[in-house]
């Protein structure tokens, strides 16, 4: 991993791009930046949402959900790569949206993404906390005392909602819902990332030792052993009942927290879990670089919809897994991702929304939509790769 400024993602050091691809990445990042600006509404970044679980096409107000994870950290990545203050300003503007959008009880307004409008979204509020803590790390590194304000906002949510509502003391992990004995590994992993960031920021290891690591033990329990699904992580569980659906995207979302757990604890089980999960994700990759949506036991598979913008998170996770000895060629997926950009700078959400339903159709308009909460994933990865300090980002607008 290449070292980066505090708050930014570590760049994927083993990724080498030819000049043509590097130029395409730069253009894509600038296009996304312009597109994000076009999505500003009162209170933050708005727009419709299309998703596997549900769509939110009518409500298009600002959503303070996981879109802020990729947008804010993506701008920190750009700032780290270029040293240009305007990227930092945009990261800070995103942080200010979250501070202003915190409700009287500590939740964030409209944090449920595809279920918006609503509050208490998982993993969305944890993703917002993570973004705020990364911003605080960056601000502290330059001696800006406003970092305390962002930490206070994140900590209020972490203590009031994540610990206050979702922490299950008996199982020692974070539930997905205070009222239900349920666990969702990828969401718990995002929460763990926020707790690692808080531990790093405060120097208090209990955030990692008492919350993040026990929760990630729960993720390990959900990993499959043997067979064609070896390394896959079950989507969720209710009590002792595992829901045996395996989404490569969500398995990838577990990896960054497991990598941090290994770095924090030195426990080799976390590194092994990362390698096996990454191998599973890679085994599902199709020749064009895309991934199927979901796999089921018995070799059943549903390819649709195949994410485009969201593959940025998969690339980020798989590249990060190189830290524990995993290797792969990211270029096929990078090409798949870049080919999905539209002239307005946004990326298509997916291919095949209409093919999911029985007697489905190929031309579903949801495919062509750009969604802040998917674009952020492309943006964050692209802003962390193919860039170096010699690059000057010139925005023609």
């Amino acid at each position, binding site marked *: 991993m290449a070292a980066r400024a505090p708050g930014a993602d570590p760049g994927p050091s083993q990724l080498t791009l030819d000049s043509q691809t590097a130029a395409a990445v730069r253009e894509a990042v600038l296009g996304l930046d312009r597109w994000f600006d076009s999505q500003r509404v009162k209170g933050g970044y708005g727009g419709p949402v299309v998703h596997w679980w549900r*769509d939110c096409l009518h409500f298009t107000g600002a959503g303070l959900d996981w879109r802020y994870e990729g947008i804010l950290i993506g701008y920190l990545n750009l700032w780290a790569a270029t040293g240009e203050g305007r990227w930092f300003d945009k990261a800070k503007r995103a942080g200010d949206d979250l501070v202003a959008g915190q409700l*009287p009880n500590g939740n964030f307004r409209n944090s449920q993404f595809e*279920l918006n409008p609503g509050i208490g979204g998982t993993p969305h509020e944890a993703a917002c906390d993570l973004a705020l803590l990364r911003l605080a790390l960056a601000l502290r590194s330059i001696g800006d005392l406003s970092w305390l304000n962002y930490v206070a906002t994140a900590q209020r949510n972490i203590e009031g909602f994540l610990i206050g509502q979702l922490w299950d003391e008996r199982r020692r992990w974070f539930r997905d819902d*205070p009222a239900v004995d349920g666990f969702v590994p990828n969401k718990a992993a995002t929460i763990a990332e926020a707790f690692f960031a808080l531990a790093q920021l405060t120097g208090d290891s209990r955030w990692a030792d008492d919350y993040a690591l026990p929760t990630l033990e729960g993720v390990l329990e959900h990993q499959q052993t043997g067979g064609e699904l070896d390394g896959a992580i079950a989507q969720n569980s209710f009590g002792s009942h595992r829901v045996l659906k395996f989404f490569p995207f969500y398995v990838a979302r577990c990896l960054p927290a497991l990598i941090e757990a290994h770095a924090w604890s030195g426990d080799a089980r976390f590194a092994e879990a990362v390698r096996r999960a990454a191998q599973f994700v890679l085994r599902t990759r199709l020749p064009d670089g895309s991934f199927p949506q*979901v796999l089921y036991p018995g070799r*059943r598979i*549903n390819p649709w919809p195949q994410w485009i913008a969201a593959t940025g998170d998969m690339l980020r996770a798989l590249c990060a897994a190189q830290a524990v000895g995993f290797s792969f060629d990211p270029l096929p997926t990078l090409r798949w991702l870049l080919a999905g950009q539209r002239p307005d700078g946004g990326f298509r959400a997916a291919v095949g929304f209409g093919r*999911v339903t*029985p007697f489905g159709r190929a031309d579903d308009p949801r495919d062509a939509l750009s969604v802040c909460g998917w674009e952020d994933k492309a943006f964050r990865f692209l802003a962390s790769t193919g860039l170096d300090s010699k690059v000057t980002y010139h925005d023609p607008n």
Partner: protein
Amino acid sequence: MSINRVIPIAGDTLVAGCYRRETSLEYSLAFDLALPASLAGPLLAVLSAPELTVELLKRVTGPIHLAVCEWMKPSTSIAQFVPWAQSDLKAVRWQEAAGSYTQLLWAEPEAQAASEIAAALRRAALPGATLYVIASGPLRRWLPAWQRPPFPAQQPLNAGGVVAALNVTGWEVESRIAFHGPRSIAWSWMYRLAEAFGRPDLGDRCLFAMRATYQEPGWLWPLAPLALIRARAS
């Protein structure tokens, strides 16, 4: 059909409890369609229960005026909703409301005094103003919000009754939509069958199909749990 659960927290306020309640897809779609992102001027709303106020606070970034209703007692004063609002929120009496509004909402009308309220809404509306009415139907008992108290209304008026009341009070009904009608109900049963027979892959496809067929023509309201009616002040 999605669940409608309340996340209890110690010392929680009514508003926070309502805010955390996950809204079922029918109500969510109805409120989304009735409340566009930006409204020209304040919205006048008539709500049959305080819980419904939260659906407005979630969506409306401009001023909201609530017509004074039976539930606005000291214990459930709208003052507790104010810190959660994105703009001004206040209660208005019908006398203050006359001839002022271009956007109006009536959620879960009560059968009692429906004609009087429809007429009062018409007096509050400017010519050409738009009124949305969200009304549950005979299948409402299948909705999570209607499975345990407090219910959204005490004596709910169904869509047919709403249209009749609007027609005689100076409103012109322009369109109607029913939510979760026969097609999506059938797909939801197929989803359950597929899950029961150990085919979650087929179940997921049926669930997608259920969502894709959630909105039905308004004339199907007797076979759907919820309807949305749009009317214009004539």
